[in-house]
């Protein structure tokens, strides 16, 4: 199989020998997704298979039939299209095996990774996302279609989002997640959709982005709306569509543009001329302004204008109750994607409060289960109402259409959807905490086992205030009454799940005892509420956070099967029974042993020694469904007794098989759903739930670490950052891997890896790094990652390999640092005792990451039968260097990964070139090695060997000064100088040193001039700049003579106000006063013209563009000199040519006397200046004769 990443559009043809095995045109459609279409000459059967259309991860694959073209060449040609049309066709060839055997996957895959198709920075960013994310701002994207919505990374906590979006980490309630499914054109993931309640509160940068996107959208919508308005007669559907678009803009009435006008008013303003034009005018001005020509459809728009527009008025009268809305008042509309819409009416008032926060807490914690709205009244109070869509039977339910849009008439309206629980919001402080406490106490007092309803609406914020006893009381209330067998069953079970999710991990062991006691367990297992799955997951998550759960190898875990495979359904019976166990006193407990039957930690107050506890058993049941015969059930062997906290492995069968790890209790709750359809639905949602409750929601309670201002009890800011690194790096790394879930689920190895990955996420959701560190999960994660990569070989996509390898490296780094005592896991995260802290952690990770890639590279070389000793030595030497600095660790990492991605022979050659570079570097050039090596490993570099060859010349040049080498290396790495071209010039070493040392040398302009001898304007500009450089060179070269009593001490020095001065001198005198030196290579002609232009300006004459430019240059010179003259520096010097005519010279001197008094004028020999410039022109192969005249 040939896997190909598609970066640019083109026409692909793959031939095995002479046989075409694949052909297709690859491009992007209007939806900006990859499209593969047949080429005219080839049948559709030869189309390459699309593996991924995901933007940024576009991939196709070509099946190479076994034996096709045996012994001949496999040839890939790619003719570039669109903007790359005309670029030479990409051709890649491989020798096909001569006999019938599989193509050696490692070289086939690797060769492709060398191709330009994979030349994307994405390979790098995947790996390093986790390292940079905690330092860079979270990525936020404005939804182009709905610019009032933002897309944010799913792994970010509410605090991080609040900090990023609003600049205030405590504003966790100032935005809401919207249940939209389709992410925008965003790479990576997962992404969540966020609506900020008050867009004007966004940080300026994001507000500007939102406004920018709104401007673009407005333009498009206005054009669309105008086109509708010009139609002679709008039908009802057309009018509805127009009103819907206008209502969408009405929702932006609280966002103002730069001029202070709301976007709603702007939209209306843009339409006003069209609205009032024929054929509307015959309705009369007033009627047109009232949008009466839209007929009945106009009513919602008139109401929106009345309630949301500041500028526009209609004759519409709002008849809703005020300030308290009356039942039946219409407060908004829901627009289905197809164009239909329904009203949103308020039913009964639920609460009235003085603030949104208080009203929201009250309404969110009410038992009511339908949609609710919070609306500010005109009297400054907030009111909550139950809401209704007035649907007739069979009508579509708005809340089941997340892709639709609500529009609200009253600004500030907030919809609370049923089941919109806010995981991650704690009890808060101050009056809100008191309000929550009051609500909790009222619910606890009112609820009884027979009528538990007052408890059923409580959200996580209120439930997080439960004391241990109250929590047990809630379980008692729910479990001792008929709730679990009544119509409240689902709500009651969900409440128990929320109670567990919101509780402190430290209190879980006591609850665990209660939950797994015989009576409670029996009730839980016999419930048919799907929310048992949530309770089970919460159980595993809290167990991970509070018990030392040790994960051994997946291969040794009890494995069970669930799901349906063809006609066979896998189910489990879940009997239970009391068994013996031993409680071990906490001081004698060895956490490394984990928890199991026979030995488990005693809780405070429990007596150590022999005890009894309930154990779980699992009996596999295979149901065979046969069309013609009765179905049959076959029961398998009952499992051994399992402690509810033991790990089990679950293989889920079905169209998308998966593997999961969970506690036996979680499996028992899942498998004991009597309704098999619910089991299928539940297992189908496990992965998704893990994401919701593991990676996203529960992580919302991640340590608050916005920026570096957070302090912790011990160690302050630094400690906090260190803890953050260990935890967040793992979270984000896991999140990156998660984006490859689909690909991973295709193989058993991938599924096993994902199972451990998911458990690691759940463990991290519990925030406790120490539990994770001692659980063995990281070790198993690293192991499973290795298995995925080695088993999948080249079939695995480059992106996945990078992600998994990064995670593997991270897990190993954490394990290694913990084992070496360089890091200590604490309940809050990871504390590093490494010198250099977080940076050292990063360095250690990079070294491990490099080791993994190095092993892969060496493996490839050996498998190809090539000698690997030299390559091994090189990589070993780089590994040693990696310990010296983070830059070198990154370089090692980049080189190893590049080598691993190359075919064996090329990898060998590449590493040999790396070795030559390393060996040839003079000691003064060593500091540049990290950058050059790293650049050679960058996937975006087309020809690393050529680059290394030039770099070798640079670092090994015996006469180049260290400063010049460093500057050239830096510029070569950032593509600002082409070393190959530079070598081809005739510059002398001395000149090269001078020019290279100058940070501002415009190499690109000179190269441009060299390659475009006929471009007069470029030639003139380059000549003028060369003359300036020559003047600087001569100034420096003749400094002793020109500035007796001074020595040159600086180049391109920034002055106080930011002006750059060419050189700096220091006096030999005791005072050591520094003086700036501004060197102007202007000719006599230019000085004369400039001074004349200045004179003309003083005489208020009209200046042409050229004269204005000259005056500006003189003014800038004065500015530079004034800046350079500021204390503590002495008066600056001005260096000019000595060829000025008498009058020009005396004018200049007079000019300086008046405008820059005390600035000495130093003169350079014009002849030498001309000679130097000419010499350089020759060196750069610039033409000598120009029709525009030489300078």
């Amino acid at each position: 199989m040939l896997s190909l990443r598609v970066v640019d559009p083109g026409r692909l043809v793959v031939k095995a020998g002479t046989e075409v095995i694949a052909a297709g045109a690859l491009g992007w459609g209007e939806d900006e997704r990859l499209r593969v279409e047949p080429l005219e000459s080839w049948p559709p059967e030869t189309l390459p298979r699309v593996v991924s259309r995901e933007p940024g991860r576009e991939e196709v694959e070509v099946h190479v039939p076994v034996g096709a073209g045996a012994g001949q060449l496999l040839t890939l040609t790619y003719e570039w299209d669109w903007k790359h049309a005309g670029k030479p066709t990409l051709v890649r060839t491989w020798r096909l095996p001569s006999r019938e055997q599989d193509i050696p996957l490692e070289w086939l895959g690797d060769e492709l990774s060398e191709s330009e198709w994979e030349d994307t920075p994405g390979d790098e960013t995947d790996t390093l996302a986790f390292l940079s994310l905690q330092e860079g701002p979270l990525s936020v994207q404005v939804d182009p279609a709905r610019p009032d919505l933002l897309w944010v990374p799913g792994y970010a906590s509410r605090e991080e989002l609040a900090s990023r979006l609003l600049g205030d980490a405590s504003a966790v309630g100032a935005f809401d997640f919207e249940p939209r499914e389709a992410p925008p054109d965003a790479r990576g993931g997962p992404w969540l959709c966020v609506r900020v309640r008050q867009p004007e509160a966004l940080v300026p940068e994001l507000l500007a982005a939102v406004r920018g996107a709104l401007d673009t959208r407005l333009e498009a919508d206005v054009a669309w709306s105008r086109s509708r308005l010009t139609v002679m007669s709008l039908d009802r559907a057309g009018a509805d569509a127009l009103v819907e678009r206008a209502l969408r803009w009405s929702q932006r009435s609280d966002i103002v543009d730069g001029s202070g006008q709301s976007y709603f008013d702007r939209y209306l303003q843009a339409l006003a001329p069209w609205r009032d034009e024929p054929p509307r005018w015959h309705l009369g001005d007033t009627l047109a302004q009232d949008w009466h020509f839209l007929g009945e459809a106009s009513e919602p728009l008139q109401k929106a204008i009345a309630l949301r527009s500041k500028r526009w008025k209609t004759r519409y009268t709002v008849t809703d109750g005020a300030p308290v809305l009356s039942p039946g008042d219409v407060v908004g509309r829901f627009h289905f994607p197809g164009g239909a819409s329904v009203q949103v009416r308020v039913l009964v008032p639920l609460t009235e409060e003085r603030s949104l926060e208080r009203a929201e807490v009250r309404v969110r914690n009410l038992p009511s289960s339908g949609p609710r709205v919070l609306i500010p009244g005109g009297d400054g109070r907030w009111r909550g109402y139950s809401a209704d869509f007035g649907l007739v039977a069979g009508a579509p339910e708005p809340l089941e259409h997340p892709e639709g849009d609500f529009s609200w008439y009253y600004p500030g309206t907030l919809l609370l959807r049923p089941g919109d629980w806010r995981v991650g919001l704690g009890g808060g402080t101050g009056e809100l905490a008191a309000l929550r406490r009051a609500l909790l106490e009222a619910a606890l007092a009112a609820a009884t086992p027979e009528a538990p309803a007052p408890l059923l609406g409580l959200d996580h914020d209120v439930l997080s205030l439960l004391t241990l006893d109250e929590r047990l009381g809630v379980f008692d209330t729910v479990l001792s009454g008929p709730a679990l067998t009544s119509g409240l069953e689902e709500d009651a079970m969900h409440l128990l799940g929320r109670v567990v999710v919101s509780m402190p991990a430290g209190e879980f062991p006591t609850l665990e005892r209660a939950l797994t006691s015989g009576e409670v367990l029996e009730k839980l297992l016999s419930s048919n509420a799907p929310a048992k799955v949530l309770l089970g997951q919460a159980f595993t998550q809290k167990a991970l956070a509070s018990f030392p759960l040790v994960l051994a190898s997946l291969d040794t875990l009890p494995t069970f099967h669930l799901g349906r495979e063809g006609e066979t359904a896998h189910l489990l019976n879940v009997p239970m029974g009391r068994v013996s166990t031993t409680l071990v006193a906490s001081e004698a407990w060895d956490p490394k042993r984990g928890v199991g039957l026979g030995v488990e930690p005693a809780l405070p107050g429990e007596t150590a020694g022999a005890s009894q506890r309930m154990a779980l058993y699992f009996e596999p049941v295979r149901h065979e469904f046969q069309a013609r015969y009765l179905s049959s059930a076959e029961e398998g062997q009952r499992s051994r007794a399992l402690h509810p906290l033991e790990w089990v492995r679950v293989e889920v069968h079905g169209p998308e098989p998966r593997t999961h790890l969970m506690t036996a209790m979680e499996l028992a709750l899942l498998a004991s759903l009597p309704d098999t359809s619910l089991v299928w639905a539940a297992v189908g949602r496990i992965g998704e739930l893990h994401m919701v409750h593991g990676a996203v929601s529960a992580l919302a309670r991640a340590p608050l670490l916005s920026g570096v201002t957070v302090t912790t009890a011990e160690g302050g800011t630094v400690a906090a950052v260190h803890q953050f690194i260990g935890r967040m790096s793992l979270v984000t790394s896991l999140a990156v891997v998660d984006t490859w879930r689909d690909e991973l689920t295709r193989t058993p190895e991938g599924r096993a890896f994902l199972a451990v990955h998911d458990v690691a996420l759940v463990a991290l959701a519990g925030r406790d790094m120490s539990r994770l560190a001692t659980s063995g999960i990281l070790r198993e994660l690293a192991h499973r990652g290795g298995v995925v990569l080695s088993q999948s070989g080249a079939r695995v996509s480059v992106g996945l390999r990078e992600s998994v390898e990064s995670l593997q490296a991270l897990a190993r780094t954490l394990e290694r640092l913990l084992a070496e005592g360089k890091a200590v896991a604490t309940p809050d995260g990871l504390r590093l005792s490494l010198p250099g802290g977080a940076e050292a952690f990063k360095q250690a990770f990079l070294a491990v990451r490099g080791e993994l890639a190095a092993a892969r590279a060496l493996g490839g070389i050996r498998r190809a039968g090539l000698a690997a000793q030299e390559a091994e030595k090189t990589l070993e030497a780089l590994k040693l260097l990696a310990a010296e600095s983070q830059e070198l660790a990154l370089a090692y990492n980049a080189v190893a990964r590049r080598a691993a991605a190359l075919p064996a022979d090329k990898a060998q050659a590449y590493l040999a070139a790396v070795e030559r570079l390393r060996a040839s570097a003079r000691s003064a050039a060593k500091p540049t090695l990290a950058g050059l090596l790293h650049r050679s490993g960058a996937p975006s570099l087309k020809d690393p060997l050529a680059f290394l060859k030039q770099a070798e010349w640079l670092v090994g040049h015996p006469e180049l000064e260290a400063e010049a080498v460093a500057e050239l290396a830096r510029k070569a790495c950032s593509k600002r100088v082409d070393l190959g071209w530079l070598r081809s010039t005739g510059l002398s070493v001395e000149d090269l040193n001078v020019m290279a040392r100058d940070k501002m040398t415009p190499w690109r302009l000179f190269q441009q001039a060299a390659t475009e001898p006929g471009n007069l304007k470029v030639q003139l500009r380059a000549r003028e700049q060369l003359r300036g450089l020559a003047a600087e060179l001569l100034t420096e070269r003749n400094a002793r003579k020109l500035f007796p009593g001074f020595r040159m001490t600086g180049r391109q020095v920034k002055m106080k106000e930011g002006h750059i001065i060419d050189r700096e001198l220091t006096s030999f005198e005791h005072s050591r006063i520094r003086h700036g030196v501004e060197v102007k290579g202007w000719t006599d002609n230019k000085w004369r013209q400039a001074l004349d232009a200045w004179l003309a300006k003083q005489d208020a004459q009209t200046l042409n563009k050229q004269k204005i430019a000259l005056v500006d240059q003189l003014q800038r010179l004065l500015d530079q000199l004034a800046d350079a003259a500021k204390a503590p520096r002495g008066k600056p010097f001005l260096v000019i040519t000595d060829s000025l005519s008498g009058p020009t010279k005396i004018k200049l001197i007079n000019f300086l006397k008046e405008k820059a008094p005390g600035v000495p004028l130093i003169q350079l020999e014009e002849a030498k200046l001309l000679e130097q410039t000419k010499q350089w022109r020759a060196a750069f192969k610039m033409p000598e004769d120009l029709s525009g005249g030489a300078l």
Partner: protein
Amino acid sequence: MSQWPLWAVLAPGEPAQLESRARAIVMTDLDAELGKDQPFEVIPGSGRYHAIVGTDPSDVGAEMQLAEELSLECDEPVYSIERANDPWTVMSWRKGALDVLEDEDPEALAESLGCPLPGSEKTAEPSASKPLRTVALIEGVRAEEARRALEEDRGEPLPSGRYHLEDTPRGLLLAGGTGGMNFAHITLSERFPHATVYGVTASPALDDFSATVMRGGEGIEEFSWPPQVFPPFPVASDIKGERSPERILAALGIPAEWFLNE
């Protein structure tokens, strides 16, 4: 970024997208991995164009690199501005091909595209504390001759009060009127090559003083107080036998109060 940008790129598009592209183009992989700050800032404009600006001299050249790459991705021109080297360079880029825009004012260009460059450069403070003025004595030339010569040079009549011309027994006294001296004495020295011109530039307190003797538009010698370390002309130890500013002015018949700035 409050500082005056040394280089800038004016490009159409969406600011966030431009920033991300610019980062990918300009930053080395190593810089990015080390989490270094991006060496530029994107200043959103009010229209299609936005400015990408940088202040670090080490990054000069990035503007061409960015403009070239970005121009490949759009149909409109992308502009690069480099103000680190003299002369400033403004280029227009289309599909990777450049055109040098002669005498284009970067600020005006940016303004016209709706994305003014930030942090206007500090202009030299007017030397309020020590303003120097120039007054000249021109021997052997009458006021009327001088006026005619200056008008010929200018190509139009001198506005009233433009210069102060006064015939004295020692010669013509010339001072700048409404627009300053503006090299008028040098012009007259060129026009009357045999006349000796004494150009005196001094501060109001005469503590910064120089008297340049010129003939035929050339500097012959110069008396300076305090003496200059790097004199531009041969040093005169006296002017008309006098060695102090006050006495030199008296010898030339130039009233000292003419150097006071009202």
